[in-house]
Each structure stands twice: as C-alpha cells, then as structure tokens.
C-alpha cells in the first residue's frame, strides 16, 4: 500500500537574532512498508520524528532524499492535479478533537468539506453529499440526527467520531491515525478503538496508527515499528516485538509501560 524507502528529512539551520541554529535531521534513512488491509503501528516518544513522517507521507513536506510510494505512485513525480486526486485516497485523523474541528462549521459542513474538495474525483452533487454525510455519521455510530449540530455540542469521543467520518468522506484506502485516542478517557478510548477496528473490517481500510501508548498499539496493530531520534530501531510483527524485543530501546519502553499488574 505504502512504501517508504530510505527517507531522510533535514530541516535547514537558521541564522537569527540569537545566533545560529544547526540543521536538524528529523528523519534519517527511514524505510518501512505498510501492506494493504493491515494496521501498522508507529511508536515513538516526543521529538522522535513521527509527525515529520506523517507530514512527508501526506506530502505536506517534501523529504530531503528517499522515496515514498503510495499504490506504486511516487508522490514527488505526480502533477498537482494527480496529487490532489491521490490525496482523496489517504486521509488523516488528528490527536486533539477539540482543536481539529472548526467551531463555526456544522457537522454537515465538516463532513461534506472533503467531498467538496474532491468533487472532481468523487463526482457527488450537493444532495448526494448530504446523503453520504448522513450515512457516514451512521457508520461512526452517531446517526444522521446530528447533521446540523455544531462541534461544541459534542463530547471528546463524539468529536473524534466526527473526525473519523470526515476522514472517511472521500472514500480513502488508507487512514493515518495520529494519536487518535490520547486526548480521550480510557472508557471512550475503548469505544473509539473498537469503532476503528470495526470500520477496518467493513471497509477494508489500511491504517498507519501513530501512538506513544504501547498498550493501544499492542491491541490494534498487526505490525509495528519503533522510531527513535529519526531512525527506525525495531520493526516487526507486534506480538514478536512485545515478546522478544531485539533492541534495548524496545526493552526499555516495554518495561516502562504502566500496566495494571501486580507481581
């Protein structure tokens, strides 16, 4: 589905009032591939390069070197129109559902906005868009009666469901989930994780699940990679990584997990 080959991203240094800042290597020689229909977990602490990698995948940022191919197409070589069409196929859900919904847009406008942007690809007229928005709300467990409400009327978990509906609107093949449950209570997190699992089975979605919570990754992902200071330090089947971690970093992270267990 997506192949990341030897991607390096270096942010240039800056000269400012307070002196020079050296260049920052945010990603160095990152290679990984996500297979169609799987959940791939990317785990790293703050500053490890998780966000830079998602920005490169969405082509919000161009890698300094290396290639990212989605469905066999290299984003760097696509024309702007082709890139826009390709973007309908890959969507993202952000961490903070309180910051990622425009408070002045109704749920209807939020969920139909991607359909409007990608109308060339999707070809939906306004009526069909509204119908699809209602279907999507049903799909994420909210129901069409919420179409004309505004974000402030919803709880955190419900907002994240709206974000998921918006991500699904242009019919993507792949969804990037950037810490989708870290702003939620565990009780709500469990519901959202189950919803994501359910949607994956029903729609055949591919997930790239970014998190710092190893418990969540263990629950959701088939395969995973650990990223540390811009480098992938371990990659493999989730179960194998947890049971027989090969790197010191993986062992350290797993032992630092706060588990509800007594020995």
């Amino acid at each position: 589905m997506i192949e990341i080959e030897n991607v390096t991203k270096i942010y240039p240094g800056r000269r400012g009032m307070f002196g020079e800042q050296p260049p920052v290597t945010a990603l160095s020689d990152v290679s990984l591939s996500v297979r169609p229909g799987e959940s791939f977990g990317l785990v790293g602490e703050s500053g490890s390069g998780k966000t830079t990698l998602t920005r490169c995948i969405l082509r919000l940022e161009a890698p300094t070197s290396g290639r990212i191919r989605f469905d066999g197409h290299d984003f760097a070589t696509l024309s702007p129109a082709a890139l826009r069409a390709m973007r309908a196929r890959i969507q993202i859900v952000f961490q903070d559902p309180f910051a990622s919904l425009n408070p002045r847009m109704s749920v209807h406008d939020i969920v139909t906005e991607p359909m409007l942007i990608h109308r060339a690809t999707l070809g939906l007229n306004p009526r069909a868009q509204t119908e699809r928005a209602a279907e999507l709300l049903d799909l994420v467990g909210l129901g069409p009666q919420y179409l004309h409400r505004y974000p402030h009327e919803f709880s955190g978990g419900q907002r994240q469901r709206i974000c998921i509906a918006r991500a699904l609107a242009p019919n993507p093949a792949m969804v990037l989930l950037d810490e989708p449950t870290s702003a939620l209570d565990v009780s709500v997190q469990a519901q959202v994780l189950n919803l994501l699992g359910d949607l994956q089975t029903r729609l055949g979605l591919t997930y790239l699940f970014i998190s710092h919570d190893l418990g969540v990754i263990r629950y959701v992902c088939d395969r995973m990679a650990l990223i540390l200071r811009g480098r992938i330090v371990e990659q493999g089947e989730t179960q194998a990584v947890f049971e027989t971690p090969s790197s010191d970093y993986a062992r350290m992270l797993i032992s630092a997990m706060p588990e509800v267990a007594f020995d």
Partner: protein
Amino acid sequence: MALLDIRDLHLSMRSFDGAAHVLNGINLTVNRREVWGLVGETGCGKSLTGLSVSRLVPEPPGKYLAGQILFEGEDLLQRSEVQMQALRGTRIGMIFQDPTTNLNPAFRIGTQLVDVALSAGRRDPAVLGGARGRGARRAAEALAVAMLDKVGIPDPAARLQDYPHQFSGGMRQRVLIAMALIGRPDLLIADEPTTALDVSVQAQILRLIRGMVDEFDMGVVMITHNLGVVAQSCTHVAVMYAGNIVESGPVRAVLTGPQHPYTRALLQAIPTRGVVRGALKGLAGSVPNLITPPPGCRFAPRCTRAQAACRAGLPEMTGTQHRTACLFPGDRDD
C-alpha cells in the same frame, strides 16, 4: 491523627446554567507514607478535590456547602487566604500537569527555586538550617542545588543559571518536583504529574515521587486518569465518579477485586496484555450533567446492574479497608 482527613465535602460551582454540585460528599483520609491515587474520567471532580485541599478553588464561582478538610486536625476551610499562603509550598506541596506553563520563562531556574526556599525559610527557619540574612540566601542556594541533585538533574549547580526553555519537558517536571519538595511539605498534591511526559520519563518521575515519600515522611494525593500509573506507584486508590468517591482501598485489593461496576468498567476498558482485538469493553454514555444530576446513585444511568433501588438514594460507602458505595457490588461478570 491522620495527615489529611476530608469529611463530607460538598462543593458547588456557579455557572450560567445554574449551580453544579461538583463534589457531593467526599470522604478521604490520607496518612503519612501513603500515596493515594485519585482516578476517574474527565469531569469527575478529581482535580477539584486536589485544588480544594490547597484552597485554590476560586470562590466565587466555587462555594463549599458543607464539610471539613482537616489537615493535621485543623480545618483548612476556616483558614484565611493569608494563612493558606503560609501552608502552600511549606506544608502542602503541589505539582501540576503541564511542566511548560508552570515555570516563569523570564527567570532563571535558580532564582525561582531560591525564592521558594527563602519563603519556606521565613515560615520555618529549620528548612535553611536556621541561617539568616545573607547566610539564608547562601543556604537557599545550597538547598536548591541539593534538591535538583536529588531529583536527578545532572550538574545541578550549573543548571541553576539556566532558563526554563533550556530544559526538556521531563527535566522541567523534575524542577517542579524539586520546587514542590524544597519546603519539605508533609502533603504533596500531584495533579496528573506525568500525563504530558513520555513513558520512559514517566517511569522515572513516578519512581522519584515514590522514593521521596519515605525520605520526607510525606502523604501524597496523586490525581490521574491512568490506572496503570496507580498500579505502579500508589499504595491506595480512590475511584471518583461525578463528584463522589465510589470505591476506595489498598491499591491491590481494589484493582484485582473491583467491587463497584464503574471501577470494573474502567479496568475492562484498558488494553492490557492478552486482550484480543474487538474484546475491549467501552463504557457507553458520559459523565452526567451535574447541574441536574440523576437521582440516587449517579452512575445508575450507565450501569448494567442498576435497579429501582439504585435510583432511590445515594448508596453509602460500606466496608472497612476496601470500601464501596454500591447496592449490588461484586467482581463477577453479570
């Protein structure tokens, strides 16, 4: 005498829609060397309980309707703001969630630590070894270095000259812990002390707090929504729901044999080892509106065991060590 004894505390908060009864009869006793975890979903009153102990709930909109907060036998609710200031930082230390916003960016770490030490020294000269005048400043600086060293900051004497932005998130939280402990408090209120931090740093900070408990002979109230953190670092736990404590007791007893359906639901929502995909149980619904709370047990609308009796009146806490407020307790599945 208990270090902290909260008795039947009722707090209401005024809002545009009416008064919300946010703490509805809290009872909590904390002794020295006990680390109490206060857990529950967002909006259950955990932080307001913590803030009440340090009397940092603004009044108005807050209003204490009834109850006592006994700190070594003396009711903090009867104290004036000036008298509370004498306690904060010396007898009662506090750590908050976000280490980035709780340090003044315009002052060196050393200045901020020395200020707290000097102020603590004015209340209790023993903190600075009885030094006065210029000697007090020197003693305060030495204390600041010693505290930074204790919380694991390398080369502490040199770091006193640094500004907050020169520290990472984990290091800033260590500085805040040093600041909270510099006055040798008897009670530490830690409100989500590790939520903003990476797991590896979290483990270090929790170990650090645990280590300080015995060294300083403190009692700790640790507010968190992470039951894993409670299991790893608390001796006792109190589970809060909608302004009530619904279950409390020694941490192992509560987490391995939860009696209240809410505690059970929270535990079942955690993706622990061996839970297969799709088997996690979420908890439907959300914390009720506290302006018009449901009658009787406030958890009843979300509870699978609720019956008519549950809606008739608020259940009393029963039990001696491991206590629960439920008419149909038990750790079996329904």
